[in-house]
């Protein structure tokens, strides 16, 4: 019996860790009011990467655009997408559309999303792309990101970085084996082929971005 009690205690502790570590606070639906819409020109930024160097989109002379993904360490949706984000970078960085990942969360609210733990997670997973920290949480509101993960596909144009797609990576967040439509891949493929993106906006499914209210 004692063994059972221990097992139960273990499960309780485990579920408590889960419950408190992955807060998904509801935020009001602000997507429509603020931030970028498809067709807008997006701002560049200078944010600290996990190698302690500052990264700006202007540093990438040869890029045709960017797959900017707001994501983080703790969110189960972000974790479920990590391998798919790495695959996107591997497929498209050489074609001119590298992934730029940005953690928008305030570690004061979600301590698992601290800069130090970003370094740990990136190393564990072998991130092939920059993983930047939105210090002070200033960039994600300009983009209008509300979720992790939340994708903004940008294309370099003479006027600046034009937003071409906003939303989810694909149509099955929780189950990678059930993916039918790869929204981001379809969008980048369309840009590379100089075609119109058929679906340029989807709902980003994930955790709400954690900031001090």
């Amino acid at each position, binding site marked *: 019996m004692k063994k059972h009690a221990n097992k139960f205690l273990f*499960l*309780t502790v485990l579920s408590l860790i889960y419950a408190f570590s992955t807060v998904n606070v509801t935020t009001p639906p602000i997507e429509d009011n603020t931030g970028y819409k498809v067709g807008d020109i997006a701002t560049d930024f200078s944010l600290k990467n996990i190698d302690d160097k500052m990264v700006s989109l202007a540093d990438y002379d040869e890029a045709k655009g960017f797959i900017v993904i707001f994501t983080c360490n703790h969110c189960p949706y972000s974790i479920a997408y990590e391998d798919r984000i790495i695959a996107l970078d591997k497929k498209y960085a050489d074609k001119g559309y590298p992934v730029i990942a940005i953690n928008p969360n305030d570690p004061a609210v979600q301590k698992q999303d601290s800069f130090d733990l970003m370094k740990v997670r990136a190393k564990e997973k072998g991130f092939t792309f920059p993983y930047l920290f939105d210090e002070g949480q200033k960039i994600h509101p300009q983009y209008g990101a509300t979720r992790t993960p939340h994708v903004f596909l940008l294309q370099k144009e003479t006027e600046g970085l034009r937003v071409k797609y906003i939303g989810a990576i694909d*149509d099955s967040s929780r189950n990678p084996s059930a993916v039918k439509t790869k929204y981001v891949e379809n969008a980048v493929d369309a840009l590379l082929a100089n075609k119109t993106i058929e679906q340029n906006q989807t709902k980003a*499914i994930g955790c709400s971005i954690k900031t001090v209210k």
Partner: protein
Amino acid sequence: MKYYGLLFIFLTLFSCKEVPEKEKQVELKKLNFEQFKTYLNKNEDKTFVINFWATWCAPCVKELPYFEEITKTYSKKDVEVILVSLDFPNKVESNLIPFIKKNNLQSEVLLLDAPNENEWIPKVDSTWSGAIPATVIYNKNKRLFYEQSFTKEELFTELNQFIKH
């Protein structure tokens, strides 16, 4: 003394055997969206409270006892609570089922294992961003959707609008 010893062995055997069997009694329906859809449009003489939650979502877990309280307060003939879990399919055995057991959940729990969120989320409610907790309360005459967390008082106040007095 010999018999007491045997009896002891029997009791020990039985008590060990019964515990795991009792633990196994969690029935969890796994549904895709087509299968789940019927729960959103039942034409019955009662009120349905459909709560979308997950074990990893802290505000969901916090408000879950209030939904359980509805189940305990009202007869199933009048109000039926359905807890729709959006736990990851690969965490069902490790997280969801232990959670249901530990908290001894009385309301019906379903696992909604539905890919293609961009298609089914608007079918639950056109305004839903997909964030949880989210709740639908409906009966034959009225339907409301809530993308928010509830306090116990708020939840019962909302439910009261649906119940004949």
